[in-house]
């Protein structure tokens, strides 16, 4: 009996170690083998629209309430990409912040002028915008579109 317990403990420990080294998986299995640099995706987004890409970066932000998006740092300075997932399909924990994430997803764009956030913050008085908001939403010379990754599967290490 004691030997059986020992065996179970050893197997559990080994399986935990195995999972720990692989990182935690979210959503579908990652199928792509080749990674694409986030800077490459963001510099030529139109060529990647609707295509599946595998990107890697540090998780710099997580959706606080539903865990329905994460923001990944790019290999290019100050640049990030937002990974949005269907609510409930994948829930990213807040503890992901600062960890390395490997994400497979499809690039898509949204019209900045159509976002609720933009309308709320920028339609009437731009002086109401915080510096961050002004930079991201209210700038006149900001591109018309924001590019996001629709996350299908992820591994967070």
């Amino acid at each position: 009996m004691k030997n059986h317990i020992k065996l179970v403990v050893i197997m559990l420990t080994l399986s935990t170690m195995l999972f720990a080294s692989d990182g935690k998986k979210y959503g579908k299995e990652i199928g792509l083998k080749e990674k694409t640099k986030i800077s490459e995706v963001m510099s030529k987004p139109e060529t990647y629209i609707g295509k599946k890409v595998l990107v890697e970066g540090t998780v710099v932000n997580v959706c606080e309430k539903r865990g329905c998006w994460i923001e990944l740092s790019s290999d290019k300075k100050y640049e990030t990409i937002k990974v949005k997932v269907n609510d409930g399909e994948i829930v990213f924990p807040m503890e992901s912040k600062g960890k390395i994430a490997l994400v497979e997803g499809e690039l898509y764009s949204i019209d900045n002028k159509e976002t609720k956030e933009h309308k709320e913050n920028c339609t009437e008085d731009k002086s109401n915008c915080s510096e961050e908001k002004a930079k991201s939403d209210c700038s006149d010379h900001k591109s018309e579109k924001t590019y996001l990754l629709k996350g299908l599967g992820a591994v967070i290490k």
Partner: protein
Amino acid sequence: MKLRRYFRVIHRDFGYLFFALVIIYSVSGIAVNHVDKWNPNYKIEKSSIKIKTLNDSTITDESLAKYVVTQLDIKDSVKSSFRSGLFEIRLFMENKTIDANVKKGIADLEVISSRRFFRESNYLHLNSAKKAWTYVADYFAISLILLAVTGLFMVPGKNGLEGRGKYFVMLGILVPIIFLLIYFY
């Protein structure tokens, strides 16, 4: 009458069996119902701390991180960092994030902690586990239907479905219908 005896047995034993799940799903139900007013999974404490300003745009990421840590006198080890701007850096520690703007001399501190029991309940209730838990949840849902149906026929007489019970059942049906008429149609 024999059927009523079976209903009682089913209702009683399923009641025992699913006691824990009823509590878990109910608690989580209330928690996620108010997701716009509170975070059902985490306690997030945010605070702002003033630090000495620094106007050096040539500073490296490592030196900037070190500067912020020294300014805040933080003992936690920094897991990773992200330079979000020329004078801005985000530092990640165990359950702690610091967003510093050294030009403005402000560091925003965010400390997260899990809401024990709520987080685990939400994980199960919202089926974040997927896999085999999906079947457990399906079985639980079917069992709730059985609990509801058998509950109707447990008590005979004036306190049963033939008596006052039917008014309560009708009231219970009417409540969702009224809300649907007001909000949905």
